[in-house]
């Protein structure tokens, strides 16, 4: 058994969206999965790209893209190697 380390991910909730979300009319069902790689690995980023690559992009910047997808950000877990976004619908 290990003790939680300082690398423990951090959760942030977007209360503006999460508080009043009503999914009564949302059709759920099977998902579509898109995975886009821009480099073979996190340590193989091209020159000119910051060390944290896509993680350097602020959350707000993704909002516009997610609007086109019809999703809103409910919450975010940030960690050293991956940021996880929980989305509406």
């Amino acid at each position, binding site marked *: 058994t290990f003790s939680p380390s300082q690398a423990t991910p951090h959760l942030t909730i977007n209360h503006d969206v999460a508080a009043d979300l009503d999914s009564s009319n949302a059709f759920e069902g099977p998902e579509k999965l898109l995975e886009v790689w821009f480099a073979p690995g996190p340590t193989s980023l091209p020159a000119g790209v910051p060390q944290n690559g*896509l993680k350097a992009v602020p959350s707000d910047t993704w909002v516009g893209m997610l609007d086109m997808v019809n999703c809103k950000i409910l*919450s975010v877990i940030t960690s050293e190697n991956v940021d*996880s976004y*929980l989305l509406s619908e």
Partner: protein
Amino acid sequence: SSMFVFPHKIILKTCGTTTLLLGLHRLLRIAAVDAGFPYHNTGSLDDIKAAATPYRVFYSRKNFLFPDKQQGPHRSWKQEVKYLDDMFEGGSAYMVGKMNGDHWYLYITSPGATHTPPRSPDEGKTTISPTRSKIPAGLVTPAEEVPQNVSDETLEILMTDLDPENAKQFYLSHASAVACEQVPLQAQEARKAAHDSLGGLSESCTSDGTTADEIFDVDDVDKGAGTATPMTDQAVLAESLTTEGHALGTVVSNNCGLSDVYPTSIYPDARIDAYMFAPCGFSANGVIPAPPGPDGAQSSFDEGNKSTNPSAHYFTVHVTPEPDCSFASFETNVPGGQKGRETADIIEHVVRIFRPGRFSVTLFETKGKGVNPYGSGMGIHDGANAESRQRLERIPGYRRMDRIVHDFDDYDLIFRFYERE
């Protein structure tokens, strides 16, 4: 729906009538403009067409259940493939599984795909995509430059026809009732007092057990809270624990067994973010840093592979419990075996949570000598792990109907399909 952002890749998994592919060009543009990834389809970032050149692209989905409800390019696989082909060069589309049953679709581009000159700006105009020239996927790093020790493994379980009893857990009414039982008595009493002060319209979260339908009345009561006695901190606590989506999501995650798929005894820094939708539906994301090594430093589950991708693991779960379209998905890139749980354990655990009538399991894993030496039991490199593979042939209560292997250039795809006995 969920999104995972790594330094080098992004994963976007969206449910229902979302228009995932309509966001693709914006995604590529963000990668170029905001993250500085190279682009090749125009001369300037100021050009609206500017979009980062991906190293590779995967797009996959289960067969369509309600195509008429879908929007944009998502009404058929043919339209989705056309959209992707218009966007990228060198893509390949596949269907895996029974054509007249549950099957699975995949679109994939290869690293190092042949680059052809982009179309002229006026060519290929479309009202759907703002992109006028194809993105030459695979140009950033040719395949021969891929580090040989990078491993990648993604397990996906897609389940339909969920057991109705198990599916009840993913209704807000049920989750609220469970939460009520778990809220501390002191908070329950404070909550009841606050409601009594509002005219006693609802007992809501009482220790003697309140039905989920009664709890829905809470919302009506609280609309008047501003004109009556303010709720105490304890009452607010009770309120949030029994109605707020994230709080209820955590309750559901703990009660259904999802939190134990990657238990904190083995994965101490794991963090789960779960949300219970109203009136039903559930989503959860998990982030799982690797356990610290002997010297206290963060190590990787991929240690045996000398992976250059430490501590970057996730899982995600989405549930639609309605009987006419019940569906649940589980996806993870936590490698099976090694220092963690075997893939067969994970699959059995997840299947027990939902008890689906049918489910498919797909495993994508990089091939090569250095990959997954301990074996997930799923792959075709697992000769030494016959026992684990046997377990996958005999998921308790299920009959394995299909096992299909696709041998791609640098990945193996294993698709299995099971039906309840």
